């Protein structure tokens, strides 16, 4: 397990706890009281730390190396029913964007999402979760296929941004994202969006338009990453904490601004500290959201969706 700087007190206590347990196992000394005590302190410390996370700390949590990624959720939620589908039928199969069909209970869903890697090799393979135009086109192809057969769509958003590359521009990164956003506003099946990690700008919105947009507690979603914002506005990366605060990018802030629909609670200590529990909550959140939409006609669905996005924005006069 890896620890972030503000998690160090937790690390210390966990190490103490393990040591105490080891002593208990190796010798005859009864350590159960000590263990209980440490456990209690651990819980309190966790609560204390996680109660008052700053925006920047949440950004850090959203990028925690042990955090579950899209395929982890899908495998846990769909089990054996998962069938991955590849390719944009155009130029490439983008490894940073995955998709396919799977079941939750008796209901089929089309899943789409950015995928990050868990070590150096797979991070490179997944291009750090930064999709190219073909990734967005693959996502759209799959969503259109779902629409054809009346299958609801679930997207998992976790990207530091769409890939800013030469070839990505040649193949029309902007066009690909724009096309997705437009088509998603009028897709005839329910779309449930779950922000599971980073929601960076157009790269996130390219698969992020939906009837229900859910954000996990320790994720961020904004028009730019705090680092880039800091370097553009403050002309230095040093002000990322300030930028994170100013951008109002946490789940709570986004909900307050009515730019997302709901917050999904994470276990104490973040999604990575109890993955099974996280998978369960997300699965239930998806099912609940789908219940809400499954009896709406495509016309109602689309008109509600269009209204929702038409109402975003604040202005005078």
């Amino acid at each position, binding site marked *: 397990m890896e620890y972030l700087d503000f998690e160090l007190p937790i690390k210390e206590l966990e190490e103490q706890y393990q040591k105490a347990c080891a002593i208990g196992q190796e010798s005859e000394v009864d350590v159960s009281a000590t263990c209980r005590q440490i456990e209690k302190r651990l819980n309190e410390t966790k609560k204390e730390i996680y109660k008052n996370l700053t925006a920047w700390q949440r950004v850090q949590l959203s990028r925690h190396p042990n955090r579950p990624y899209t395929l982890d959720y899908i495998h846990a939620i769909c089990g054996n*029913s998962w*069938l991955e589908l*590849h*390719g944009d039928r155009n130029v*490439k199969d983008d490894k940073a964007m995955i998709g396919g*069909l799977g079941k939750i209970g008796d209901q089929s869903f089309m899943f789409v999402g950015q995928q990050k890697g868990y070590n150096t090799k797979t991070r490179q393979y997944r291009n750090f979760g930064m999709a190219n135009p073909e990734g967005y086109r693959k996502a759209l192809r799959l969503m259109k296929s779902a629409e054809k057969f009346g*299958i609801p769509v679930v997207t998992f958003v976790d990207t530091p941004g769409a890939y800013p590359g030469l070839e990505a521009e040649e193949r029309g990164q902007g066009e690909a994202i724009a096309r997705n956003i437009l088509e998603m506003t009028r897709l005839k099946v329910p779309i449930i969006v779950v922000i599971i990690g980073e929601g960076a700008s157009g790269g996130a919105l390219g698969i992020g338009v939906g009837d229900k947009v859910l954000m996990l507690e320790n994720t961020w979603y904004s028009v730019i990453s705090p680092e880039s914002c800091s370097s553009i506005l403050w002309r230095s990366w040093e002000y990322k904490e300030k930028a994170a605060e100013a951008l109002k990018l946490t789940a709570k802030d986004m909900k307050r601004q009515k730019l997302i629909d709901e917050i999904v609670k994470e276990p104490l200590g973040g999604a990575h500290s109890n993955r099974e529990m996280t998978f369960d909550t997300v699965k239930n959140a998806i099912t609940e959201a789908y219940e809400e939409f499954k009896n709406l006609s495509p016309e109602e669905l689309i008109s509600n969706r269009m209204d929702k996005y038409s109402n975003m924005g604040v202005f005078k006069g």
Partner: protein
Amino acid sequence: MAWFRRTQKGIQTATEDKKDVPKGLWYKSPTGKIVDAEQLEKNFYVSPEDGYHVRIGSNEYFQILFDDNQYTELDKNLTSKDPLNFEDTKKYTDRLASAQEKTGLKDAVRTAVGKSKGKDLVIACMDFKFIGGSMGAVVGEKISRAADYALEHKIPLMVISKSGGARMMEAAYSLMQLAKTSAKLAQLADAKIPYISLCTDPTTGGTTASFAMLGDINIAEPGALIGFAGPRVVKDTTGKDLPEDFQTAEFLKEHGFLDFITKRSELKNKVNQYIDLILNQPLRA
């Protein structure tokens, strides 16, 4: 010292007396692995030694995909006419007759309906051994009629491509089968009936420019050659060396044209899993 000493001199055996293994008992895969023919059949005609997918025909695919090998063949007796009185080194009519005699097939595709995992499925499967699996009017018509059958009975359609391309002896009639089959698939798509395209070794020329690439999912067997222009033509035209995996199923998947590659042993499962998922049916075990 020699291990064996030749005691008798000048032994000669006539060819017919030589103890030879009868033909068809063994199969040699391209990597040189030798496989027992019976074992090969049990293993879905895939070499257990190196996973090589041996080219097979409609008979074998029907056996693999239909429950208990039970199916009803559609339009069994459709055969080619020779509208152009075509003649190359041989008369087209003679070529047809000899292909029919040699293969026991009427043309390069067979279409059938039957149960796969308990549910109806229409399959059109091409046969490479009939004039290179070339697509003429009969292939086009049979695939179109199979699509009609799927449309009428609301049954998913699967086309198994295995073809060298269009049939030159039917010239432009052959070309127009691309349009004819594609038009039918458009109707099928409008009716929201799933269409699965399986590309097997080889799927080239006109088939890739029509039904082979138009599936709701396009899938392939490992290592299958799939492409529009053959590798030799591409190399001669461009004068460039081609990548080693050029036009393999893996190459196609990497370039975004295949949804997945499946081993033959998994084929029946995967196809039916897709059908259940996309039609929102309970998954069949």
